[in-house]
């Protein structure tokens, strides 16, 4: 066995400490340029904000457990739901996915690090900066932004106290910084995937996670400028008194809705595509079968990117758009079901006749797929104009959205965290706590978000701080589900912390998985393969085929372990 002296010599050699090496926890609090450190920084920051956003959600569900507005004042409720949405999107789900990108992309394609390490670190450090700005808005006079995460003008431009520094201005600033951070990240991910693949790792041999990350980050590069431009005009209207969106000055409030949704609908694909990638990675490992129809699954991601950019008006069916526009955008929205269906059927065919191992990661992936299919069928309903007109801006949409973002995306993220936890921490997690976490999450998700569908069909609008008594029954169940989701985080955090501190040592490849990252020791050294960069000779997911993934696989594994 190598002694600590071996580790220390590498610490001395590398410009920054090796992940997992003893006594260097401080690297997580520094401007570190190692993608694996940045990945963990992203994920830890995101999980902190998941707790904040979740706490706000539980206060909201506390308010909504009774019809009257009685727990908090209406203004407070409006601030809570606005900040809940903003935090969960910009400070939880985007950062946690960027964390996975940082950990996985370089290791999966055999690169030593990201293409632009300093840009990478700068992109991460913007997250706590705008996180603090957003949290600080709770403390300014007048309270935080309270016009929803859409921030539609004119209601978002109403500034009751007239202060220059107000919650809405801080909100716009935070969202703009988040956009800049995301663009910096996207430039890095796209460049790394296109330029830094190991020899023999052609695009058609690339793991699906990298395909989906590439697709998602391309959307960021195309869509974010629209939102950022729209947000700057909103800031000018708010602070300088311009009239881009103010009808009394000749502006058009509906223009903002176009800017907003041109990015914010594709943003959902930025979130869900990498989770499709996670499903595509995990099902083959735990079913012991190759991914069914790899080229179709990879290509479907690109089709989704193309379609995602031409569907945004489906959020605006009741906004006063002409009928031809409603029909056209309904058709494009419907078409997205086709590439998505290709993926779902590919996963089912992968599972079919497999040898399934139901550990925590696999359970989360299966649960995530279950929830995603439910969200998919309600999505088709929402695409059809007359049904959307009825349920638009009701809890039906809130239920659909949370099945996507929590039921599918967040459960997919949990699956990914469990699956790659041994790789990047060097420790195994506890299966028992993991399965408890899964059980509570799966039940809590369905208890919380299913009741929103009947509520929406009955006509309960979203964003209300009080409601008519006929909605009480389903709201009580939803609130109980929300509190259960709060409880479900406890075994998760307990598992992460205790496993990292004292979990069993992880071998290089605990799941017997195929992929470049599993050739590396756990945790991988700072520069991943260092001088042993392998040459890839076959496509991914060769389970049961007996095909080696890289040239001289055994020698490389041995050399890496002894390094």
């Amino acid at each position, binding site marked *: 066995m190598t002694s600590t002296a071996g580790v220390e010599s590498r610490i001395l050699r590398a410009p920054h400490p090796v992940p997992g090496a003893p006594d260097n926890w401080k690297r997580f609090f520094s401007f570190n340029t190692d993608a694996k450190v940045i990945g963990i920084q992203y994920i830890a920051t995101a999980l902190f904000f998941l707790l904040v956003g979740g706490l706000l959600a539980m206060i909201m569900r506390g308010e909504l457990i009774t019809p009257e507005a009685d727990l908090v004042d209406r203004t407070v409720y409006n601030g809570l739901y606005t900040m809940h949405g903003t935090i969960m999107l910009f400070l939880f789900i985007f950062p946690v996915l960027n964390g996975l990108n940082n950990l996985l992309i370089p290791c999966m394609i055999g690169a030593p690090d990201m293409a632009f390490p300093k840009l990478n670190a700068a992109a991460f450090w913007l997250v706590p900066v705008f996180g603090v700005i957003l949290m600080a808005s709770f403390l300014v006079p007048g309270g935080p932004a309270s016009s929803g995460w859409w921030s539609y003008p004119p209601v978002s431009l109403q500034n009751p106290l007239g202060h220059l520094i107000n919650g809405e201005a801080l909100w716009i600033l935070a969202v703009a910084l988040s956009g800049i951070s995301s663009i910096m990240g996207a430039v890095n991910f796209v460049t790394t995937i296109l330029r830094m693949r190991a020899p023999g790792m052609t695009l058609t041999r690339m793991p699906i996670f990298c395909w989906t990350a590439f697709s998602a980050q391309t959307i960021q590069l195309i869509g974010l400028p629209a939102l950022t431009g729209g947000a700057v005009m909103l800031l000018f209207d708010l602070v300088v008194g311009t009239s881009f969106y103010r009808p009394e000055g000749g502006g058009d409030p509906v223009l903002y809705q176009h800017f907003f949704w041109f990015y914010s609908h594709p943003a959902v694909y930025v979130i869900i595509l990498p989770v499709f990638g996670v499903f595509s990675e995990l099902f083959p490992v735990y079913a012991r079968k190759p991914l069914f129809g790899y080229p179709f699954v990879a290509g479907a991601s690109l089709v989704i990117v193309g379609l995602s950019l031409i569907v945004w008006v489906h959020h605006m069916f009741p906004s006063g758009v002409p*009928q031809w526009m409603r029909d056209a955008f309904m058709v494009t929205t419907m078409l997205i079901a086709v590439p998505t269906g290709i993926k779902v059927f590919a996963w089912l065919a992968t599972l079919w006749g497999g040898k399934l191992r139901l550990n925590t990661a696999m359970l989360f992936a299966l649960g995530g797929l279950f929830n995603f299919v439910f969200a998919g069928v309600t999505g088709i309903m929402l695409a059809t104009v007359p049904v959307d007109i009825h349920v638009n801006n009701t809890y039906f949409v809130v239920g659909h959205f949370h099945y996507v973002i929590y039921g599918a995306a967040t459960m997919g993220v949990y699956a990914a965290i469990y699956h790659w936890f041994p790789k990047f921490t060097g420790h195994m997690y506890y299966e028992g706590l993991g399965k408890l976490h899964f059980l509570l999450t799966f039940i809590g998700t369905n208890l919380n978000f299913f009741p929103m569908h009947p509520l929406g069909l009955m006509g309960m609008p979203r964003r209300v701080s009080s409601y008519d008594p006929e909605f009480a029954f389903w709201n009580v169940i939803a609130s109980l589900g929300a509190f259960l989701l709060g409880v479900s985080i406890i075994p998760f955090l307990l598992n992460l912390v205790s496993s990292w501190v004292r979990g069993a040592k992880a071998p290089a490849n605990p799941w017997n998985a195929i992929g470049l990252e599993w050739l590396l020791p756990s945790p991988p050294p700072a520069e991943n393969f260092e001088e042993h960069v392998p040459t890839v000779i076959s496509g991914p997911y060769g389970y049961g085929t007996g095909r080696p993934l890289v040239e001289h696989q055994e020698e490389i594994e041995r050399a890496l372990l002894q390094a």
Partner: protein
Amino acid sequence: MTTTPQRFPLPRLIGLAVWLVLLTLLSVWMGAQVPRWLPVSASSAAPLVDGLFGFETAVATFVFVGVVSVMVWVVLFNRAEKYDMSDAEPIEGNTTLEIVWTVIPLVLVMAIAAYTIQVNREIGLIGPMDHAHGPATAKSAPATPLPGGEVQVIARQWSWEFRYPVAGVSSTELHLPLDRRLGLQLESDDVIHGFYVPAFRLKQQVIPGRSITLFLTATRPGRYRLRDSEYSGTWFAANQADVVVESEEAYQDWLRRASRLPLQPGLSDAAREYAQQLSGERRSGYATIEPAQPPLVNVPGSNTLPHDG
């Protein structure tokens, strides 16, 4: 997958057929449950929307339960034995299957889209840009204007006001005649609101600086709830009004009686709660826009009576 006879023996095919029949029956049954989940249908548009939603529910049930039953099957019957570390049979794809599950969903969603466009035509749910030439629906009577004009709907932070210009009536309760197509002229004084009557299955943003005409035919007498459906600020949730649908005679009678009543402050839950906050009876939170004065109307009406949906 290669379809050799051994892979699909007769008992398995029969099982598959039985399962498909059961799945279809379940889907049809679910589609028929739709009316129980929705408010009463009280406009000419509502049965068309409900019919479409019922069809979609049946399709959705088929897809969802179909996928989930495959997942349940593999979880039950395709588990690895405890110490079995081997791989399964490596099947990497099948182009025929890929074509099948691309084309079938494509045909299915395009069929739903075609059906929907048909329903759109029938509802004549027309956008503001072409409302002048809106097609009359098959079910509703020809668009006879109200004697002398339409109802003017004015949304404010946070109250609804309904004006009947010809009768010279204003109200904070919307009265509509039964079975007559009429236009509502939607206007906002401040921010975007949403005109939403769940029982009518109709919703339209009310956009400041625009006047949007929404045509509808109420088909069932009763009292329904109108809700603000576009977030409009502090008292958004309390911005509700009632819609009373009554026979043509009762409606004309109401207009006549209302026109003789003196003006008085209309309903505004927001103004009431705000006054309570100013007097200290009710807790307040962050800063808020002050609610607009309740409009002066002939008939305040009610928004607390039991309603039908």
